């Protein structure tokens, strides 16, 4: 065996091994798992409600990564290359983490807004109850007073529904209920104040 032949054989073997090593590239299983976990974490952080656009972007990228993996899976064994899939999955992780961060921030903001709305609703309702107790009684007021008591009763019932949904972290629902309590209590306040003004009493 001469030297040239040895070089050729060695070279061919090296090329074959290299090609095989390249062609037998591994599927990005671990990165796929990481991407899925990142999406799941974003969802658990409330991204579906509080960062839907970012979550959707991550999910779209994940779908693209799966398409790329499928394409590579179907390619000739020596030609498979998962680099693109890896790159897309890395973007999925980044986007999902961004969705999670945004969801946490937005949810926290929604919680603060809901809590503030509840405090305002409770204060206004307490004011309305006090004011209604001082409302002038007289000619033709009984039906009006009963209607206002009805308002406060409904406001109390709605307020009682807030704690369970607050526990479920449905802050948008909490805010909606608190705002409805506020609307009822505000009307009572306004009507009683108007009646007091009419009757010559000065609102406390």
């Amino acid at each position: 065996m001469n030297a040239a032949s040895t070089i050729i054989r060695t070279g061919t073997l090296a090329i074959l091994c290299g090609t095989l090593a390249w062609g037998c590239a591994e599927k990005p299983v671990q990165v796929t798992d990481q991407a899925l976990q990142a999406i799941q974490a974003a969802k658990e952080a409330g991204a579906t409600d509080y960062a839907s656009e970012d979550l959707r972007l991550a999910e779209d990228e994940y779908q693209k990564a799966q398409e790329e993996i499928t394409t590579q899976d179907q390619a000739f064994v020596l030609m498979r290359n998962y680099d693109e899939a890896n790159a897309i999955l890395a973007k999925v992780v980044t986007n999902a983490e961004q969705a999670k961060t945004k969801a946490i921030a937005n949810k926290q903001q929604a919680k603060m807004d809901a809590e503030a709305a509840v405090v305002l609703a409770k204060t206004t309702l307490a004011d309305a109850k006090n004011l209604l107790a001082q409302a002038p009684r007289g000619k033709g007021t009984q039906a009006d007073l009963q209607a206002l008591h009805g308002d406060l009763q409904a406001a109390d019932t709605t307020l009682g529904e807030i704690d369970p949904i607050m526990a479920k972290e449905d802050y948008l629902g909490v805010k909606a209920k608190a705002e409805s309590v506020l609307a009822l209590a505000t009307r009572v306040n306004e009507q009683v104040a108007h009646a007091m003004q009419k009757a010559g009493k000065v609102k406390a």
Partner: protein
Amino acid sequence: MRDQGSGPTLAKRQSCWLGAGVLFLLSALLILWWRAPGLPPTFPTAVEHLDRQIWLAGGANLFPKQYAAFHQEVTDFRQHWRVEVTRWWATWTLEEFTDTNQQLMQLGATLLTDTEKKALFQQNGLKDSLKAEQAQLVRLRRLNGLFDFRGKRTPLSHAESYLAQGLSHLAQGQLDAVPHLLMQAQVVIRPIEEILIRQMIRYSNEKKIAQWARWVKDTIEHSRQTGGSAMVVIKASRKLQFYQGGLLRHEYPTDLGFSGLQDKLYEGDGATPEGLFHIVQKKHKGETKFHKAFLLDFPTPAHQHRFSHARAQGLIPGNRGIGGLIEIHGQRPGQRELTNGCVALNNATMDTLFPLIPLNTPVVIVGTLDPINPVSKTLEPIQQHHTQRESVVQPSPIGLSRQVIE
């Protein structure tokens, strides 16, 4: 010998490898040349962005079939591109690719516009429905104190709470929560509205108004013929007219009970009876807690007949009787309400009328004399909204209204 023979062979071999290399290079260049005007190396993000925009605008809910088809087409388009770019030779030209991309962009742009329009329409529709129900609530609440509102006030407040929640959800962009809240409010409002419409409809009934007008005409005619006094109470306008010798002498404002615009049916219903009556007793100061009073001959045989008929039909709650002691009276000191089913005047008016009204004076109490009266005017928009809603709303689940209404 060996050296002589190996020289040309090696040179031949080297030439052969060189030739193969050149051939390989040319083939590669040919392939590259063939692929040169081919597909873009990265998939166009605009169409993907458009897909996402449609989804965010609510396309998946508003146009589920169209959106699913569009999304699938984008996916297929991308998949096709991916397969093409990994091939050694392309089966798809750049023109074909560009055409498909443009078609999808146009399709997506149309779908996005339609979705945004429909979303806005849906949002405005929900807002209008919530506002329309709020307006109906305001109209119904105005009847408080005129018609029987017992057991209706708190449910109406609940309905108002549902509507306010709906508006809040709408403002927060949560459209999905709104239809249920709207339906909850409508389930409460609808039966109350129906009861009130039934109570009010008499004030638009031409036959009924004609009957009331006949009673009034006969009473005034009697006053004219006898030269005596007569009193006409018109409930819708809350007026008491005093006649002498068939001529209207004075008109006074009155107050009625908590459902005074209804015709009295049973004891404690707060309604003021309608019909032809006579004063059977004049109660002086000290004989009544209402300053001074004229006691009427209620119930008349006509009222007793009506009561018996209603009882037979099960329309009288509990062991209620027909009631009595219907008076035209003055004010009770310190009392919140002037009356619970009588006709109330202020004390000064009672003092003026008292010496002018003898025993047995005819008194006629009617709903209205005018087909266009405050009640019919209020009824019209209530009925209009009710009819409009019933034409679009499905029947509510049985039992829910009973659960909510006291």
